[in-house]
């Protein structure tokens, strides 16, 4: 095994590699650790400079800042859609810059990803969309069915399981995406503007759902523009400006409290 597993006990690492349910979580090990991360895109634009960020297990972090501040770049680095130009990005014990390309799918199965535009397959029902995330891992059917039912009940979509995404409201579509992100039991959920396409009331529903999932022990990293939500919840806020972290505050508001 060439995977870099830092810090976790051998037992937990083995469990995760074999896809066994995680019994024991190394709580002292941060889920995300970015050290001196810089990202320069091929067009020469420096999107991130000297970013240091540690997110411990069970945290709920808002990533805020104006457009172009680097939020999306951090999201892309965390899901290994981009590689850092320098520095290290470690997610769930894996050094993403050094992770071989063919191991990227395995790494993606250990995190849950949620997008602004839901990214559901339009020809598949809610149940199939969620099951899909397990099918790609080669999980046997008898395991898929109960796992899908479980996450659908968590997000409250048991009744809509056989509908197509086009028959659902925006909020229901996002809840389907959350169910899909949850189904392989991730340690961390990366959410990029999950409420960006939703009206305020539905946004609150989605946030409540993410908070509940966080209470189940899943770390949540959420990039957002929604100042009302961020300010009301008083969680950890990481603010970015021009590719640098300008504020990292537990119990913070969207805007700097002067």
């Amino acid at each position, binding site marked *: 095994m060439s995977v870099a597993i830092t810090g976790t006990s051998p037992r937990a690492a083995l469990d995760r590699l074999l896809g066994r349910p995680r019994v024991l979580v190394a709580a002292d090990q941060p889920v995300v650790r970015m050290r001196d991360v810089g990202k320069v895109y091929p067009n020469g634009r420096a999107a991130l400079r000297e970013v240091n960020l540690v997110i411990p297990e069970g945290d709920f972090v808002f990533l805020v800042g104006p457009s172009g501040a680097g939020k999306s770049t951090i999201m892309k680095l965390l*899901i290994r*859609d981009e590689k850092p130009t320098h520095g290290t990005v470690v997610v769930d014990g894996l050094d993403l810059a050094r992770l071989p*390309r*063919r191991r*990227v*799918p*395995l*790494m*993606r*199965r250990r995190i849950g*990803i949620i997008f602004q535009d839901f*990214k*559901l*397959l339009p*020809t598949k029902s809610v149940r199939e969309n969620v099951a*899909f*995330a397990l099918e*790609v*891992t*080669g999980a046997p059917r008898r395991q898929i069915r109960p796992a899908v039912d479980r996450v659908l009940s968590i997000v409250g979509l048991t009744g809509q399981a056989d509908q197509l995404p086009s028959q659902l409201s925006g909020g229901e579509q996002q809840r389907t995406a959350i169910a*899909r992100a949850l189904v*392989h039991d991730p340690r961390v959920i990366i959410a990029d503007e999950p409420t960006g396409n939703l009206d305020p009331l539905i946004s609150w529903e989605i946030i409540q759902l993410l908070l509940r999932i966080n209470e189940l022990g899943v770390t949540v990293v959420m990039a957002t523009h929604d100042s009302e939500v961020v300010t009301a919840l008083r969680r950890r806020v990481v603010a970015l400006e021009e590719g640098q972290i300008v504020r990292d505050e537990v119990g913070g508001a969207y805007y700097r409290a002067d």
Partner: protein
Amino acid sequence: MIRFVLFSVRRGWQGFWRNAFMSVAATATMTLMLILLAGFWIIQSGLLAGLQFVEQKVEVVADLTDDASLAEVGRLRASLDLMPQVAGVNYVSRDEALGRFRAQLQEQGETDLTAFLDSNPLRASLEVRLTDPEDYRAVIERLRAEPLVTTVKDVGNLVERVLTVTNMLRSAGAVVLAIVAVIVLFIIINSIRLAVLARADEIEIMRLVGASDAFIRWPFVFEGALIGVLGAAITLGLLGLAADPIRLVLYDFFRVLPLQIGSLTRDLVVLVVGAGVGLGVVGSWVSVRTYLIR
């Protein structure tokens, strides 16, 4: 492994039907292109058979001395037959030669002057057909060394001219077929690329939820193969319906030519199915790859 293959085949099948419009469009393109390819290939086969026929018309003719006995001529024939350059030897007796001459005159509408002859002035000859007209020199030299032979017609000039024309036509045919093949290749791969492009979102989602490259790729590859098989089946079906008229034209046109319909059909099936499935698979593989590399 077997489970993965079955799973991929099933998902390829689903992908084909769930995106029926793009699949039908790709299959239609595949069919048209395969018909184009098959058509040009049939023409090329006819051309090659025709050229071969023309080349076989080139003969080395050796006149024989009048006192050559039949037994001696028979020995000479047998020894010529043993030469690898010789495809066949035909003996024309003096009487036959005279008969041919008369028939020729009659055909041209000339008066038959041979009636005024009191003896046959023509010589008996051997007509030597060549396996490859390029080898005419060796045969001519062999014949010249023979005491039974008086003169050997120098066919060198004729051979060179015939070969220039046939080789040119052969190259032209090959070039046209190659160009058609390249066009077919690009159009088929592009139509499959379009079908895959329509599902770029699906591929992206698969990648995001952690599908391996193989998991994403193989259903598309099987789908491409399915498009190829369907396209080839439709093409062969249409060609089968048109087989009788085609055969009639071919026989009519190449009646005397050494064209073998049996092996032509077999080669055609191999070509159409091979090109269809091959291009379907390669097209899918290449198209999906665009979305996998990161």
